[in-house]
């Protein structure tokens, strides 16, 4: 499977450097290595979800309990979580570090991913969520740390979009 193990490890290490202790996830192709790394790490609590919006609740609970968390989801999972983001994270000023695999963008071959790709950034902007693109390996550590820093300072969700260039090798 041409999902980049090297760059997945880079992202995972950056999450560890951010002192992330709880990761919620719903599997999708680009996230497989990240989820496996979380599962194999005895110091990480991985919560496999039935639906992505549960992760908004879990991260809200973790934040109120003083523990850093991150969410791994596909952009369609983000779309499925919008009410939870609005009615919990934005309403209650909860920082979220959302790592979103950006399917349906440039280079996408699967027709079924393309509508979600077209609306991801406009919807993030519509609900006022700052976006950081992860395209280049040298940016990963700095951008994830900065995204978390902004989330905590603003008590607001942030979106880190994982691009095809970073995640997929073909």
């Amino acid at each position, binding site marked *: 499977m041409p999902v980049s193990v090297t760059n997945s490890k880079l992202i995972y290490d950056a999450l560890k450097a951010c002192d992330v*202790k*709880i990761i919620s996830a719903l599997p999708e192709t680009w996230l497989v290595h990240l989820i496996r790394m979380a599962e194999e790490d005895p110091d990480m*609590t991985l*919560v*496999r*979800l*039935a*639906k992505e*919006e*549960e*992760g*908004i*609740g*879990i*991260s*809200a*609970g*973790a*934040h*109120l*309990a*003083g*523990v850093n*968390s991150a969410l791994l989801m596909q952009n369609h999972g983000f779309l499925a979580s919008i*009410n*939870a983001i609005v*009615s*919990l994270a934005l*309403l*209650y*000023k909860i920082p979220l570090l959302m790592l979103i695999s950006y399917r349906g963008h440039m280079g996408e071959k699967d027709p079924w991913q393309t509508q979600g790709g077209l609306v991801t950034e406009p919807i993030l902007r519509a609900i006022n969520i700052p976006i950081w693109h992860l395209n280049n390996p040298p940016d990963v550590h700095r951008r994830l740390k900065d995204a978390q820093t902004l989330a905590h300072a603003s008590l607001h969700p942030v979106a880190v979009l994982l691009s095809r260039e970073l995640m997929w090798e073909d």
Partner: protein
Amino acid sequence: MLRADALQAIYPELEHHIVVTIMGAVAVELYMLGHRHNFFYLEHAMGLASSMGLGIALAMPEHKVIVIDGDGSLLMNLGTLSTLARYKPGNLLHIVFDNESLLSVGGFPTATATGTDLTGIARASGVPSVLEAHTPDSLKTSVSEALASNTLTGIVSKVEATGPKSFHMDLPLLENRFQFKRCLEAMQRHTHVR
């Protein structure tokens, strides 16, 4: 059983634990019994109180977390039962007051009014202990047993579809949020070596 009577019966247990409730009548009724900083009322995001409870329970394993849910909210996020059952945090108690109604939006019947069985769904999802309690006394006993058992427990209590006259709470939701977070931090400091 009236939910207000049920809450009164278990208030002495709730008082000392982390409590997350859903919006609407149950939040107001608990608030009126006596607000405490360890109580969080999720005033929106229907369905996610149990997910929040799971996040807190995983983050604070030495503390008990009690989620007070309702049939309408739980039906919006049935997947939460499979997630709770997957990780089985022994410090989490999930109470569901089932009034078979979306009371706070005008009393429309939910699917539990036409036979959907939340106890059965919770059991079939793999929640290790699922109890039913339909009187204040039996609920109090079930709550005490569940808290002592260190086993993920669900309790379903049928209650009447009546609520308070007013839904007003003199507690802005952000005040509740910051109060609650500070309270959890203080609890962590007193017991916690991570």
